[in-house]
């Protein structure tokens, strides 16, 4: 009977999880134009070799890693800051409303919110530059220059994700052992001291889990590129997943799936490594 309960889940996981992943790895070893035919031609590691020797791939890989290296700490630290602010004892009224406000981006369709944010960074009618110029500040390049496009994507994605991370920290705050904090207060610790020496160390597992989660999310960054920047200007925001998609759109299935496989290995190794590191430092 339990097998019967399991059957739909097993079939769904097999058909739309395991099979496509296996298929992706198989296609990575075939010649693109024969990949979907009944008689595919296998070419060994040729696709991987072609991808790994291409300049475009190196650039996109470094861009993705740089982006992730910036995005994870920015998101985790801002989420912690937000959680601390929203858990402040004086904030008795309206705490719920503030929580709702920071969580709304996480449940809204990102096609809509990304398009709205993209328009806000527009040079002609965007509010960002309008506000900056109004305050007498220099205009922000938005999506028109490579560096500012990179920063714009980072800002947009942080806006989208940080609320969820902040709520995870807020939930963990409520699970903390309040007595240690009270003891520290009795011993004359300031709020800052108790934060650094009492609260943060207790939160370490939550910080580790959130960082790993964010790491996986940002390595996979795609939607924001597709909707907001399309990889431009001058490929400055063409990340690994976007490169794979470009290959797929031009029917270079072999190379597209080779890139997908490489990215999967990167995600797997990075998150596995981070997990092991977090666990080891927990046992210290």
């Amino acid at each position, binding site marked *: 009977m*339990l097998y019967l*309960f*399991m059957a*739909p*889940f*097993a079939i*769904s*996981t*097999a*058909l*739309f*999880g*395991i099979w*496509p*992943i296996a298929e*992706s790895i198989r296609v990575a070893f075939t010649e693109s134009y024969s*990949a*979907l035919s009944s008689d595919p031609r296998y070419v060994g590691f040729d696709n991987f070799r072609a991808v790994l020797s291409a300049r475009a791939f190196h650039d996109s890989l470094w861009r993705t890693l740089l982006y992730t290296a910036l995005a994870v700490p920015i998101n985790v630290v801002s989420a912690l800051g*937000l959680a601390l*602010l929203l858990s*402040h004892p*004086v*904030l008795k009224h*309206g705490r719920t409303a*503030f929580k709702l406000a*920071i*969580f*709304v981006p996480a*449940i*809204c*369709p*990102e*096609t*809509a*919110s990304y398009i*709205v*944010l993209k*328009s*806000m960074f527009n040079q*002609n009618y*965007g509010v960002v530059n*309008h506000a900056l110029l109004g305050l007498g500040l220099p205009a922000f390049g938005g999506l028109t220059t490579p560096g500012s496009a990179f920063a714009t994507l980072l800002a947009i994605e942080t806006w989208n994700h940080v*609320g969820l991370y902040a*709520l995870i920290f807020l*939930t963990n705050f409520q699970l903390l052992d309040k007595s240690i904090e009270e003891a520290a207060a009795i011993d004359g610790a300031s709020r800052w001291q108790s934060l650094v020496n009492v609260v943060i160390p207790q939160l370490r597992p939550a910080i580790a*889990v959130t960082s790993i989660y964010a790491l*996986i999310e940002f*390595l*996979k960054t*795609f*939607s924001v590129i*597709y909707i907001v920047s399309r990889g431009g200007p001058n490929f400055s925001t063409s990340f690994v*997943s976007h490169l794979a*998609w470009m290959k797929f759109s031009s029917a270079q299935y072999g190379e*597209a*799936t080779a890139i*997908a496989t490489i*990215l*999967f290995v990167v*995600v797997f190794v990075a998150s596995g490594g981070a997990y092991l590191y977090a666990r080891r430092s927990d046992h210290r």
Partner: protein
Amino acid sequence: MKPRITACLVYCLACAIALAFLYPFIWMVTSSFRTQEAILSTPLRLWPETFDLSGFEALGRIGGVPLRDYAVNSIVITGLATALGVCITGLGAYALHRNPRLPLFSIIRYGFLIKVMYPNMLLVIPLYFVAHKLGLLGTMLGIVLVISTVPLVFFLFVEFFRSIPVEMIEAARIDGASEWQILMRIILPLARPVVLTGILISFLLTWKQWFPIMVLSIGPETHTLPIALVSLNSEFGVNFQAIMALAALTVLPVLLLFLLTQWRVMDGFMVGGVKG
């Protein structure tokens, strides 16, 4: 006096942050009622000077398909995928919980975890091949099947089943209840709140889906509102006001649903998310 200053500062900061998170939505709604010329001359405005509906009227057809069809697709695909997905993941998580040591069960669990970890945008590429082989490309059924299982809902169920005392199920078994009876008479009544939360979260997250639906579609006949928005956005010579109007139409139903069910949804995200 000093605590009052702190309180004031904390409130001001919290309000500023809340505004930063909500402002894009305010701007979206305001801009959808303002003419293109008005937006160009003064982008910053909290309230539209006129309620100009031409943006909404311009949305009659997108890519040759009436707007109504996109809305119907959104509702049908999201509704079916939610119903199916909650049943599949609920039963699967239940079976896994009851006896994780059955042959194949751990393989299924690991298979699912690998699927969750695989970059989902890149899973869509081989999913296209698989849908092609199964003859599901461009069909509503294929889209619904592919997007139905939401990992967060699976983890939500896993956490819930962990909270049910084993003794309860054991007692029922000793009394001679079949697996089916245990599920229907004991588990299901207890699971009602978690099923409701699962349905809500699944609905909200499936409504957002756009990339797999776009790739698995052959034409706009199976596109949903978020995809209509992407196509409108990539058209040449865009009508900015119409884009904001469509964005508002895409966001407002789920925003409303979320605001009405906020506690359930946020708690569900925390239970499913903190563990998963």
